[in-house]
């Protein structure tokens, strides 16, 4: 099992959700996060007081998939989230040791 953590532009969330649904991935966890990579922040001015806002709002998706579905999921996600500009985000992939469905204690890929 692999966990895909993707940090994407908030306005791309709908596209990504649709793309994942299209390939049959229907479980995901989403959180609102703030952060930055190479994208520069922006400046805000309130009555002459300047603030540099470099932690920008992003959305983080967490998805766990069977190993066999990893490539397909990552490519669908990447395509849907891409605008080609700085700030599109990152995808991180890691291995998952175990998954348990709380309702009936199913384990392993069957629990996904």
């Amino acid at each position, binding site marked *: 099992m692999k966990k895909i953590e993707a940090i994407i532009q908030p306005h791309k969330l709908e596209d990504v959700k649709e793309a994942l649904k299209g390939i049959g991935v229907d479980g995901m966890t989403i959180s609102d996060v703030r952060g930055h990579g190479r994208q520069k922040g922006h400046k805000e*001015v309130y009555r002459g007081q300047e603030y540099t806002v470099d932690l920008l709002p992003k959305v983080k998706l967490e998805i766990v998939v069977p190993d066999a579905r990893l490539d397909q999921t990552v490519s669908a996600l990447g395509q849907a989230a891409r605008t080609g500009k700085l700030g599109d985000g990152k995808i991180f992939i890691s291995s998952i040791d175990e998954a348990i469905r709380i309702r009936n204690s199913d384990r392993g890929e069957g629990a996904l």
Partner: protein
Amino acid sequence: MRRIPGHLGCLVLLWMSWPAAGQPPAPEGPAEKIAKLEAAVASAQTAGDNAWLLTSSALVLMMTGPGLALFYGGLVRRKNVLATMMQSFILMGAVTVLWALVGYSLAFSEGTPFLGSLKYAFLNGVGLEPNADYAATIPHQTYMVFQLMFAIITPALITGAFAERMKFSAMLLFTVLWSLVVYSPLAHMVWGKGGYLNAFLGGKIPTFDFAGGTVVHISSGVSALVCALYLGKRLGYPHEPMKPHNVVLSVIGACLLWVGWFGFNAGSAVGASGLATSAFVNTHFASAAAALGWSLAEWLRNGKPSVLGAVTGCVAGLVAITPASGFVKPMPALLIGFLAGLVCFVAVSILKGKLGYDDSLDAFGVHGVGGTLGALLTGVFGTNAINNALKDSSGHAVALGLADGNAGQILNQLWAALISWGLAIVGTLVILKVVDLVLGLRVSQDEEIEGLDLSQHGEEAYN
């Protein structure tokens, strides 16, 4: 609509016009008729004037709550929004009680040129009969309650300077003392009968302040600066971000201030008169031009005109036109507003940063600076073509400002502004010292970090 049959209508008319049997109409001489007419005219004028003044009183109260409470509340961080709004709201209670007991008397009864007496204490003698010195056509109580609304908003304006760091108890004691030591004396000097600066009621230095450029705005703005300097900066200012937590609230607040200001300025005509219209138009014009002035300056300097800038500009324009609103023509009002937008922008956005004091919500930059500018420009543009209430011994309207050829008035205005500055500085310093000794002014560091909503009031705004 239901129609009454014709013959029935005729019957009703006949019955109404039929003289009652055995009661011939009493003969009425022309003198009696005239007396009755005069009474009817006076009563009609009272009805009109009183309706406008009561409406204006309500409008001016609306400026404090919710107007100022929202304007200031939006500018602070979310952990302090309730405490900030409370600082305005509680004054609607505290100053009202104080005003009823002694405040009104100290400001508006006859006494020395610098302070009234206790003649009207507990509103003794302040009834429904007009007080001809102040307003001959409305009940004295209407005038009293109208003036009360000014006394409420003035200390509320100061709270912008010490927002996010002052103890609630200290703030309450400070504003109560300030009302007595600074507000009432200054109101007496400028508006009270026999007041030192009152051009209309026997003042030694005739000064024109239609609705409170000195009494309200210089006094609150300059006191605000003293408070900001005395209390020191907020923890983390200026390197920690202290962005306004909700500019939407501030926009709503500023719009309420704009509308309420019609009561503030046009109500100060103390009648539903042409002068009220003049003040209304000037108020609106100055506010509009100031919003544009500030936006333009910001656009040129920062590349973008901010919403917060536009609404702050409108308030600056309202402040500056306040003393002039019943003395100038509409075109000078536009100019006064536009200048106020530019000058207050420089004070708030450039000078404050350079001087380094933490006037958290810019009470000084807007009210102190705008009020002083307005007080001086009243001496420039004041004209008896708008306000001819002041007559010389032969009954001719007196020249008011430079616009009438009376350049010396600018010096009078300057003197009044200096006196207001002086009283505000000295009075505020003394009161701060006293409150500091009795209660302590600032919350503890932990309480400041936690936020005043929780530490002072045990509540949170957004749950």
